[in-house]
């Protein structure tokens, strides 16, 4: 072996493994536009693949993994539970939000049937139904009969009840009678008070009640109620109104017409024949409605064109005539209550027309004056009486004597006047504010007044010129104020309204309606002339000596 060769063998050749690819080109240049020159690129791909071996790892859920696990003796259930942390959702990424909007499907059920002509399924069903219907009809007949029976029974009960009451009612002519003791049970108080009462002239058992409030701070809705004496339990008609009622009047001839005056200044006419909750006529701001509460309405005889008409008086000082034309209410100002030497208007509170002289009427005012007016003179009063020191609550002409009228006031007095004389003929002090006064329709000398202390005072001037012949508290509580009184036009019954909303009907005891006794067997003269004479006799005693004719 040549020595040189051996040396050659012994020579150590160093090889170093580097990450650099010896075959990779090292002189790649690229043109850089930034520096406008060719630049060598330092980083070149240095990787070469010499060997590839696929992984031996298995997905733990795959079949292969399971098989492997079985081989290694690990059972399937035993495998280590893996914690799956809930993925943190990006709250701003809508698509990553969890979705909970799956709704439950509506419940379902199955149904199956057969419709078949050959087997007459439809026909049979129809037939069955028909039979059922027939049976039902029979049953219904039976039940309706039963119901009718019950109804008639109830009717009888009702009749019996109303029988009791009518017995009591019809016994007003008789005293020392069991029905004297009759007193209806009082119901819990209502908020409205009785502000107007009026009898129906045609049907003597029917009267109208106006409900409202005299309290300035408690104004609200009102009610018009028509009652019959035959049934105290339920009204014949009732209408609720938006404003409180202060006065009403039933037409003398056409008793289905009711004129109503409201606290808000409106007047309205209700027609009881029509089953409407609304009035048939109502004044509004355009048609001359009063600007203040309406205190009195009075029907008049039909005018020359046969139109119904009525008068109203209000706190705004106007007396207005209202005419019912086909479908509207036409107003005419009759008089404005100016006090001539002052420049203000007086507030009218009451109104009454003379029974015989058609143009003559009286107006009571809040100032306590009573004006005698005529429909034909709108500029001035015929006469003025300094009647009271407080508002005049009522003024009324006598039913018989053409010259006499009565007035009452909150100044505790009732005064009787001869309209030709400027001073009162009689003055009665009732020691409490007098709310209303009414002449009796059967005697020229009998009248009744109600006071706010809950008493009714009945006077008969032919019996006692100085004191009431009857003074009776008619309401249970002293606190209750009586507001109105009216005599029945035919029977000796009075109705009294109070501020708790009750209307009490009372029969007059015989001494209050006693006809003057004559000698036995002697018929006493009757009629209006007698009544006039009776009053005249009384008045003549009081007149100035020079008026007395000897």
């Amino acid at each position, binding site marked *: 072996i040549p020595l040189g060769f051996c040396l050659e063998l012994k020579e150590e050749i160093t090889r170093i493994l580097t990450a650099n690819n010896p075959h990779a080109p090292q002189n790649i240049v690229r043109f850089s536009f930034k520096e406008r020159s060719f630049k060598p690129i330092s980083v070149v791909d240095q990787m070469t693949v010499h060997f590839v071996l696929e992984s031996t790892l298995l997905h733990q859920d795959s079949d292969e993994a399971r098989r492997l696990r079985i081989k290694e003796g690990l059972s399937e259930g035993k495998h280590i539970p893996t914690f799956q942390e809930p993925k943190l959702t990006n709250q701003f990424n809508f698509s990553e939000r969890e979705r909970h909007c799956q709704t439950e499907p509506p419940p379902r059920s*199955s149904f199956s*049937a*057969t*419709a078949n*002509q050959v087997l007459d399924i*439809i026909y049979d069903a*129809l037939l069955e139904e028909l039979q059922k219907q027939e049976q039902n009809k029979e049953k219904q007949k039976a039940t309706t009969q039963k119901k009718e029976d019950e109804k008639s029974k109830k009717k009888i009960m009702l009749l019996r009840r109303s029988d009791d009451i009518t017995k009591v009612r019809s016994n007003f002519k008789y005293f020392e009678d069991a029905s004297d003791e009759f007193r209806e049970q009082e119901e819990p108080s209502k908020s409205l008070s009785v502000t107007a009462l009026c009898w129906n002239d045609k049907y003597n058992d029917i009267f109208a009640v106006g409900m409202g409030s005299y309290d300035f701070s408690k104004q609200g809705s009102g009610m018009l109620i028509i009652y019959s004496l035959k049934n105290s339990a339920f009204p014949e008609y009732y209408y609720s109104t938006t404003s409180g009622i202060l006065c009403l009047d039933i037409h003398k001839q056409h008793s289905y017409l009711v004129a109503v005056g409201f606290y808000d200044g409106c007047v309205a006419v209700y027609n009881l024949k029509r089953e409407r909750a609304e009035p048939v006529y109502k004044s509004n701001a355009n048609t001359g409605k009063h600007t203040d509460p309406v205190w009195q309405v009075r029907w008049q005889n039909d005018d020359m064109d046969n139109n119904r008409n009525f008068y109203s008086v209000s706190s705004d000082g106007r007396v207005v005539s209202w005419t019912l034309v086909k479908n509207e209410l036409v107003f005419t100002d009759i008089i404005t209550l100016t006090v001539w030497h002052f420049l203000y208007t007086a507030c009218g509170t009451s109104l009454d027309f003379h029974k015989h002289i058609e143009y003559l009427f009286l107006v009571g005012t809040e100032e306590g004056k009573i004006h005698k007016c005529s429909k034909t003179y709108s500029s001035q009063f015929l006469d003025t009486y300094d009647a009271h020191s407080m508002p005049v609550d009522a003024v009324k002409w006598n039913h018989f004597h053409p010259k006499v009228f009565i007035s009452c006031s909150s100044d505790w007095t009732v005064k009787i006047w001869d309209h030709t004389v400027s001073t009162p003929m009689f003055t009665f002090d009732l020691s409490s504010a007098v709310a209303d006064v009414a002449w009796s329709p059967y005697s020229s000398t009998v009248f009744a007044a109600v006071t706010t202390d809950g008493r009714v005072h009945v006077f008969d001037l032919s019996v006692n010129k100085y004191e009431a012949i009857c003074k009776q508290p008619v309401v249970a509580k002293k606190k209750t104020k009586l507001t109105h009184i009216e005599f029945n036009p035919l029977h000796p019954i009075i109705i009294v309204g109070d501020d708790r909303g009750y209307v009490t009907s009372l029969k007059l005891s015989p001494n209050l309606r006693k006809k003057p006794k004559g000698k036995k067997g002697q018929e006493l003269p009757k009629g209006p002339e007698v009544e006039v004479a009776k009053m005249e006799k009384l008045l003549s005693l009081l007149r100035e000596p020079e008026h007395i004719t000897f």
Partner: protein
Amino acid sequence: MAGTGEGKKEEADYKRLHSFPLIRHTDMPEEMRVETMELCVTACEKFATNNESAAKMIKESMDKKFGSSWHVVIGEGFGFEVTHEVKNLLYMFFGGSLAVCVWKCS
């Protein structure tokens, strides 16, 4: 022979006479039931000879009124088994020989 013929005629008359709509089965509420029944009667009377048109009319009206997916079957003889949404099924007879099944299922 004549007697049976008369009997058949009478029966036919009777059938014709009593061709009122009769609801055989329903679980619809009152108002819906009345409306559906009236609709069925109207449709069957309008298309007396064409059950398909009647069914179409009923289905379309029901879809409009009470939401989609109504199914209607009208015929003189058929058996059926359906799954329906509760309170949305009506099975009635009409005209003496027709059966109408209306149901909703979506």
